[in-house]
């Protein structure tokens, strides 16, 4: 095993220092019955060359990787500037532990501080943590926090919430004994926020939602009374769109994969969590803060740690420890490379291309089940049925969701398409031809 350097001679010398006779004697405290029941996993070791070749073959078996992705629903096929991978590849970042020793973790901590600043800028909020596992667990934690503060034991949730978010939210709420009330959406694809249930700890809404539709958040907060307005967002879209913070959101969460992470079959992802300053002592997860060192120089350290599990144990605001630090670094570098100008360009390109395609499809007779505004994702009814259109797209090398993927939303015979900046004019022309026929 080439990761361990040890020969039997040296092992003997070390055993002498320890004062035991053999390697087996080091395990004499494990009950004999346990040791005797042991069975190996039946795997011979393989060389590095063989392992690499094996994985190369597995990678080739993924047809999706060479297809043209039109998939969305929380994870998107965005372009990542090459510099991001180069920075992430520095092992000082990726082989470090959680920065419990701040004096030799200033790289990670400074980047965390930058990340928190960027998340606040994007979402329009006052404070952000240093990341959660993914958008779904970030949302679940937001609801737990709201219920901890408000205590109604019930939350209202838009039925246009993405399925990955709703599944995880349901699991966490079931365990915590929080009742989940559904809030339906209307023909526009927008959630009906005119009348919301009373005596709930939070109202949860996603924008753009599972149907790609942008939710009108204006005035929602005013109708909520005590309840928290919890908004799940698509951070890349916020390069173009007004942030949820401007509409009075109390907590903004989101899936950060769009900010410089590969799709990776859905993991690792990046949970964003931002809220108001007054809830600092209630938020889950780690936070970096600015301070001074013994010589008066500026440095960074973890702050507000008394909320966390290693200090407050069963009364901690969350059980989270390891989070998505390296993914947060990727998002930080991504936003640093793009800058405000570049992010706005990427966001607008998504918007333009998706609208371009939708308008072409409309001209060719496709219809749209929802007429609400959208960003880069929409639901379309192809002229001759979704099943046939899906088959044509797939045969042409596009990677699309099955036509029955939206039945949970009461939508049949339609396709959900996400169009990112990576989709070329040529690809969009082909999609239009395959869905709407040639003009």
């Amino acid at each position: 095993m080439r990761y361990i350097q040890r020969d039997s001679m040296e092992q003997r010398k070390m055993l002498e220092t320890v004062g035991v006779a053999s390697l087996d004697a080091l395990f004499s405290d494990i009950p004999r019955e346990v040791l005797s029941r042991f069975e190996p996993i039946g795997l011979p070791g393989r060389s590095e060359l063989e392992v690499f070749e094996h994985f190369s073959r597995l990678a080739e078996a993924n047809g999706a990787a060479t297809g043209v992705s039109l998939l969305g629903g929380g994870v998107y096929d965005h372009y990542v500037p090459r510099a991001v991978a180069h920075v992430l590849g520095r092992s000082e970042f990726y082989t470090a532990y959680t920065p419990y020793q701040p004096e030799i973790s200033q790289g990670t901590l400074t980047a965390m501080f930058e990340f928190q600043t960027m998340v606040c800028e994007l979402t329009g909020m006052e404070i952000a943590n240093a990341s959660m596992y993914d958008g779904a667990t970030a949302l679940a934690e937001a609801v737990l926090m709201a219920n901890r503060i408000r205590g109604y034991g019930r939350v209202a949730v838009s039925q246009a919430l993405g399925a990955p978010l709703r599944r995880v939210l349901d699991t966490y709420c079931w365990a915590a004994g929080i009742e989940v009330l559904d809030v339906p959406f209307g023909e526009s694809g927008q959630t009906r926020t005119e009348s919301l249930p009373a005596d709930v700890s939070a109202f949860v809404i996603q924008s753009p939602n599972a149907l790609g539709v942008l939710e009108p958040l204006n005035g929602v907060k005013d109708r909520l009374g005590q309840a928290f307005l919890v908004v799940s967002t698509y951070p890349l879209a916020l390069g173009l769109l007004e942030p949820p913070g401007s509409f009075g959101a109390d907590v903004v969460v989101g899936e950060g994969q769009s900010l410089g992470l590969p799709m990776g079959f859905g993991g690792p992802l990046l949970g964003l969590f931002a809220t108001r300053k007054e809830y600092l002592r209630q938020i889950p997860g780690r936070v970096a803060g600015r301070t001074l060192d013994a010589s008066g120089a500026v440095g960074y350290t973890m702050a507000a740690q008394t909320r966390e599990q290693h200090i407050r144990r069963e009364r901690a605001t969350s059980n989270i420890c390891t989070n998505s630090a390296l993914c947060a670094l990727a998002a930080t570098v991504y936003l640093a490379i793009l800058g405000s100008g570049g992010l706005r360009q990427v966001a607008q390109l998504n918007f333009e291309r998706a609208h371009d395609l939708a308008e072409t499809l409309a001209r060719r007779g496709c219809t749209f089940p929802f007429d609400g505004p959208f960003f880069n994702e929409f639901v379309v009814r192809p002229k001759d049925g979704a099943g046939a259109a899906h088959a044509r797209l797939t045969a042409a090398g596009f990677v699309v969701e099955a036509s029955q993927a939206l039945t949970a939303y009461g939508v049949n015979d339609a396709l959900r398409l996400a169009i990112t900046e990576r989709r070329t004019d040529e690809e969009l022309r082909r999609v239009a031809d395959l869905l709407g026929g040639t003009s």
Partner: protein
Amino acid sequence: MSTLFDLASSTREPAGGVVPRPRWTDEEVAARLDGRLLRRRALRLPNLPEGTVVRHYTRLSKLNYGVDDGIYPLGSCTMKYNPKLNEDIARLPGLTQVHPLADASLVQGTLEFLAELTRLLARIAGMADVTLQPVAGAHGELTGMFLFKKYFESRGETKRVRILLPDSAHGTNPASAAVAGFEVTEIPSNASGTVDLAALRAELDASVAGIMLTVPNTLGIFEESILDITAAVHEAGALAYFDGANLNAYIGRARPGDMGADVFHFNLHKTLSTPHGGGGPGAGPVAVSAQLSEHLPVPRIVRREGKYALDWEAPASIGSVHSFYGNVLVAARAYAYLLHLGDEGLRAVSENAVLNANYLQARLKNSFPLPYDRLCKHEFVLSGGELPNHLSTLDVAKRLIDYGIHPPTVYFPLIVREAMMIEPTETEDRAALDRFVEVMETIAREARDEPDRLREAPIKAPVRRLDQTLAARSPVLTHPFPEEA
């Protein structure tokens, strides 16, 4: 320490050029979107040339200490070497450019290694089934607590609301139990640092859902009465959860399933060599005994007619704990590591991890008190409680930094005063261990003769000791932009 935002004043022109220029004018955008939906205030993100950004992050990286810099003896964190092969595998475009909602027929390669890893982890644990969905150790614990809850709910035993925990447990254990809606009862350790069986039996009644154990415990001591403990728990109708943070102590040699575990979580970022990333992403797969299998999260990866598929049909499932299928690219690294090691390699891991720890323990106990002086497993705990000149464990930790060594875990476990918890892992060679011993001996000498060297440490780090009180009393958590300052 300047941040990206401190660099911002040099250029203010939007950079652009990463993606093609958009074509539409602001008016054309506005024609399609209600004005209230459009961003009004420009983002305050600096627009800098790529070289400036790369230099900034390269500089930041040099302020960090990673496993590639040297020994990283953080107890319970298993900071072993992260093989480069695994990093390159996880970056193969065939694995990264795959959308989680792609049809199963288009992701057979990924589904294959996920299914294989699931199978191998179940064998390593000696348990019936595994889910890869949890993405961190604490997330695995939480999933385990959800599984406990569902199990008792499905049996109508709703009065089982308590989880028992030894006082040496990691903080995530009580927190995970609480998030899942359980009450926590602490049980004391006995004089040898292990679970007090009598105290445990006294607590085991019909209100107990289960126990959470770390094996070996956080003192690095194997619970010699582990079989009695799990038997007592099962007799009381409760379940046993094993925190797998310390699996490096016995992987390839013993299995939690054979010790009576009902649920066990792996930390792929500890035992199976995937990098910690400065605090994640990790992965916390959970293994279960046969009776809990039906409650595992959905979807499950199944094989039907020679093809891999995702199965969502599981009426007794706890639901999902992650947006998709967990940290797939972390799983790829762990699978590559297992393929390379094989059975022989796994055995060598625990053998050398335990040998290294015992070697360090034997050599260091002359310089620092060792409250539990006995055979340890992969880690052990020294005390800084008798340091001269009013020095503390924190001072020792900071002085290690001056010698270019990452400090051990300090002030944990809570049952040892001024604890220093040391875990060398199997990937340190003897020269690295000997150097660590020499430095610790030097620091013990300095503590006696030149205490200021410890008190003022670190002096060679990028910053001196940081004022934690200031950071906590007046939190500054985001860049203060000039217009706000």
